[in-house]
């Protein structure tokens, strides 16, 4: 999901996928799509030969990111607590683009 965390903690094997949070295996009731994701993940598991390898799964989510509705219905308590700080990061995010 977020392979960037690998740089912080070191994960033995990562099959990274660009799918929304809460649905890393695929869409609701899409058995065929879920199977593709899992079979490629298993194939990677079998071939990974040393610690720290990341395999980037080739799948693309069929909706635009802003339409994926992955966020909880209410802002989480930790985000609420740091909301002002997070808003200030908006400028930094724009600068990094």
């Amino acid at each position, binding site marked *: 999901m977020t392979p*960037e965390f690998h740089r912080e903690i070191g994960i033995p094997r990562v099959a990274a996928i660009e799918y929304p949070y809460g649905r890393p295996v695929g869409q609701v009731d899409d058995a065929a799509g879920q199977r593709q994701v899992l079979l490629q993940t298993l194939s990677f598991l079998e071939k990974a030969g040393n610690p720290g390898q990341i395999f980037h799964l080739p799948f693309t989510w069929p909706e635009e990111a802003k339409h994926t509705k992955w966020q909880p219905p209410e802002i989480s308590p930790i985000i609420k607590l740091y909301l002002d700080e997070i808003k200030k990061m*908006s400028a930094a995010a724009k600068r990094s683009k």
Partner: protein
Amino acid sequence: MQNTGKVVNGFVFMPPSLGAWIGKDIPAQPFSGNIPWTPLKKPISETTFTLMTSAGISMKTDPPFDVEREKIEPAWGDPSSRQIPASATEKDIDVNHLHINTDYIKQDINVMLPLKRFKEFEKEGQIGRLAPNCYSYYGFQPDPTELLTRTMPHVADQMQAENVEAVLLTPA
């Protein structure tokens, strides 16, 4: 291992400010510490799997993950775990997680914990077998001490008791 050419951006679904805030603590350099490593001992088709997710899934018959305390203590996350029988379906589970939309998991557990898919793989001979029990914990852990020192050793014991040889972890 051939890679596919795609490079996954883990922040693509986040509002840019939230991504920048979370990403500010991630080092720019590759991880340089020791990474735990257990080689796969057999082909996948002979390997016993279990599944584990950080999505806060619990059986309706068990206590839910404690999100009420987190609402009062925003820097605390429930450090416990739950066993989820491999036969569980959406009807059997509850999902409590304050950082994602849990509706999709309640509609189809396999989007997060692919029990049905792994039972299919077992029948088809793609994997050796799926162990009788799978697991869930709560992924928001600002201080993971209790999770790592008390909860996970117990989970590892439960996995070993069922001869688990590989774990697929699906982060929420």
